C-alpha cells in the first residue's frame, strides 16, 4: 500500500501544480495579452475618461502583481467575478447551467462508447476485411467533421424533413414544466419524481444534439477500442483461452475488453475536453441552456469575467477528470502502482 499512496500523492501534487498553472494562464490571457478588456467593453469611440473609469472599475489600473494577488484571493473564496450581462456572480450562472451541459455531454459519451466499443470490436475481429476498412474511414471522417455543420445537417434531415426530432430550441417544449430540480439533469430528475411527460420530452430534445456530439466523439473511441482489441486478441493468453475452449463471447467481453480498458478510459478522458469545446457550438445551435451557450453569449457581449470563469471551469474539470481516471487505473491495474 505504501507505493500506492506515494503514487496517489504524487499524482495529486502534479494535478495541483497544473491547476495553479491553469489559473496563471487564464490570468495571462485576460490581463497580459495586448488586448484591453476595458477598451473592448467601452467600445472604440469612448472618451479616454470613460475608459479610465472602466479600467478602475475592473481593477485594471493597478499594477499586474497586485491584480494577480486580487484575482487569486477572489478565486480562493470561490468568487469568479460578476457577469456584466446577467448581473449575477459568474459561479452562480455556471452552477445553474452546468447540469444541462453535463446531461448532454454524458448522453453523448454514452452513445459514443456504445458505438465505439461495438464498431471497434467488430473491426478488430474482422481485421483487414472490408468492414474494417469502412470503420477506419469512419474514424478518419469523424475526426474531420465540423460539428456545427453536422448539427445543421441533422436538424435539416431529422427535424425539418423527417420530423422525427424535436425543434432545436432548448431542453423542453414550451409549455412543459421542467421536473422539480434535484440534480438539474432533467432525465434524472424526471425519473426520480416519476414525471413521464417531462422525461419523454427531455429525451426527444436531447437526442439530436447528443447524436451530433456522439458522431464526432465515437471516432476516437472506435479507433482506440479497435487498436486495443487487436493487441489483446493477438496476445498469448487469449490464444490459450481459445485453445482450451473458452467461448469467444466470454473471451471478448471478459478478458480482451477488460484488458483493453486502460487506453479506452484515457481516450474517454481526452474526449471530454473535446465535448466541452464542441458544446459551445452545439449548444449555440440547439439553444441548449448550458455553459457552452453561456460562453457564447458572453463572447458576443464582451463579458470577460464570464468567459474567464467558463474557461477556468472547463480546464479545472478536465484536469480533475484526468486525475480521477489516473487514480482509477492505479486501483484497477496493479502494474501501474507498482511500476
Amino acid at each position: 500500500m505504501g507505493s500506492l499512496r506515494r503514487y496517489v500523492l504524487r499524482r495529486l501534487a502534479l494535478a495541483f501544480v497544473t491547476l495553479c498553472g491553469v489559473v496563471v494562464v487564464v490570468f495571462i490571457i485576460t490581463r497580459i495579452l495586448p488586448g484591453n478588456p476595458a477598451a473592448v467593453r467601452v467600445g472604440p469611440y469612448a472618451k479616454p475618461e470613460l475608459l479610465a473609469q472602466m479600467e478602475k472599475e475592473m481593477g485594471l489600473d493597478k499594477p499586474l502583481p497586485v491584480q494577480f494577488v486580487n484575482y487569486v484571493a477572489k478565486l480562493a473564496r470561490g468568487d469568479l467575478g460578476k457577469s456584466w450581462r446577467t448581473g449575477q456572480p459568474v459561479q452562480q450562472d455556471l452552477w445553474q447551467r452546468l447540469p444541462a451541459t453535463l446531461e448532454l455531454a454524458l448522453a453523448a459519451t454514452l452513445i459514443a462508447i456504445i458505438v465505439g466499443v461495438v464498431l471497434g470490436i467488430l473491426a478488430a475481429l474482422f481485421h483487414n476485411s472490408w468492414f474494417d476498412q469502412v470503420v477506419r474511414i469512419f474514424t478518419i471522417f469523424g475526426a474531420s467533421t465540423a460539428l456545427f455543420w453536422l448539427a445543421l445537417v441533422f436538424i435539416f434531415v431529422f427535424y425539418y424533413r423527417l420530423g422525427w426530432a424535436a425543434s432545436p430550441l432548448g431542453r423542453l417544449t414550451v409549455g412543459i414544466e421542467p421536473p422539480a430540480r434535484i440534480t438539474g439533469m432533467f432525465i434524472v430528475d424526471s425519473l426520480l419524481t416519476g414525471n413521464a411527460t417531462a422525461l419523454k420530452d427531455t429525451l426527444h430534445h436531447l437526442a439530436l444534439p447528443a447524436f451530433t456530439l456522439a458522431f464526432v466523439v465515437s471516432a476516437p473511441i472506435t479507433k482506440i477500442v479497435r487498436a486495443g482489441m487487436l493487441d489483446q486478441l493477438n496476445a498469448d493468453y487469449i490464444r490459450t483461452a481459445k485453445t482450451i475452449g473458452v467461448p469467444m463471447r466470454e473471451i471478448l467481453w471478459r478478458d480482451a475488453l477488460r484488458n483493453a480498458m486502460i487506453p479506452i478510459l484515457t481516450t474517454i478522458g481526452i474526449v471530454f475536453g473535446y465535448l466541452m469545446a464542441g458544446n459551445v457550438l452545439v449548444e449555440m445551435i440547439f439553444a441548449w441552456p448550458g455553459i457552452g451557450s453561456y460562453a457564447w453569449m458572453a463572447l458576443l457581449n464582451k463579458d470577460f469575467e464570464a468567459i474567464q470563469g467558463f474557461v477556468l471551469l472547463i480546464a479545472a474539470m478536465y484536469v480533475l477528470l484526468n486525475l480521477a481516471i489516473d487514480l482509477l487505473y492505479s486501483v484497477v491495474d496493479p502494474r501501474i502502482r507498482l511500476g
Partner: protein
Amino acid sequence: MVSEPLAVPRHREQAAREGRAWRAWYVLRSHPSMIAGLVLLAIVLFVTIFGPSLVPYKPLKTDPENRLLPPSALHLMGTDAFGRDILSRVVNGARLDLFIAFSVVAIALGIGVFVGMFSGYYGGRVDDVVMRITDVILAFPSFILALAITAILGNSIPNVIIAIAIAYIPYFVRLTRGEVLSAKERDYAEAARCVGNSNWRIIYLHLLPNCLTPALVQATLCLGWAILDASGLAFLGLGIRPPTPEWGVLVSEGSRDIIGGQWWTSFFPGAVIVLTAFGFNLVGDSLRDVTSPTEAVQ
C-alpha cells in the same frame, strides 16, 4: 579528370532517387486512403489557385431577384439570401481558409520543434519547466483556448492564426522532445559530440533531420484541425467576420435558412470544410501508418 570521381556518386544518386520514387509508389499503392486524401487535396489546391478566375460570379455581388435559388445548372450550389452565388463564395473563401491553416501550422511547427529540441536535448530543470507549461496548455481544450485568446485579442485574421497556433504548439513540443530524448543517445550523436561539434550544431544539423518525422505527420493532421477550428470560431462570430467569404462565415450565414428548408446555403460551404479536413486527415493518418508502424494501428 575532375569529372571521373564524380561519375560514380552521380550514378548512385540517381539510383537512390529511383529507389525513393519506387518506395514512394510502393507505399502509395498499399495505402489507398493516402491516394484518396492526396486526390482530395489536389482538387482543393487547384480550386484555391485557379478557382477564383474560373467561377462565373463575383463572391460579393448581390442579386436580389435571384435570392435563395436551389442548386441548378446556373448556380451549382444555389444562391444565398442576398442572391450571391454560393459556389463563387466557397471558391473565393478557399484561399483564406488554407492561408490560415498553413500559417497556423508553420508557426506551431516552428516554435514547437525549436522548443522541443532544446528541451529534450538539455533536459534537467529547463525540460521540467517546459513540460509543466505544455501540461498546463494541454489542460485547455484547444478550441476553447483559441476562443479565449481570440476574444481578448480581438477579431482579425492574424489574431485567429496566433490564437490557434498557441493552442497547437504543445503537441509539437511533446513529439519532438520525445524523439530527441532517444536520438541524442544514439551513436551518431555521440560521435558528433566526440569530434567537438557545438551543441547547436549537433541539435540542428545532426538531430533535427532525424527527429522531424513525427512532427511533420502531426503538422498534416493539424492542417485539418486548424481549418475546423478557424471555421468554428468564425461560425461563432469570432475572428473572421462577414462579409468576408470564409467557409465558417458562409455556414453561419446560411444556418438561418435551414428552418426555411433552404439547406444549400449552409450545406455546401460546410461540406467543403469537412472534405478538406478529411483530405488532410487521410494523408496524415496514412503517413503515421507508414512512418511509425509500431505506433499506428495495424
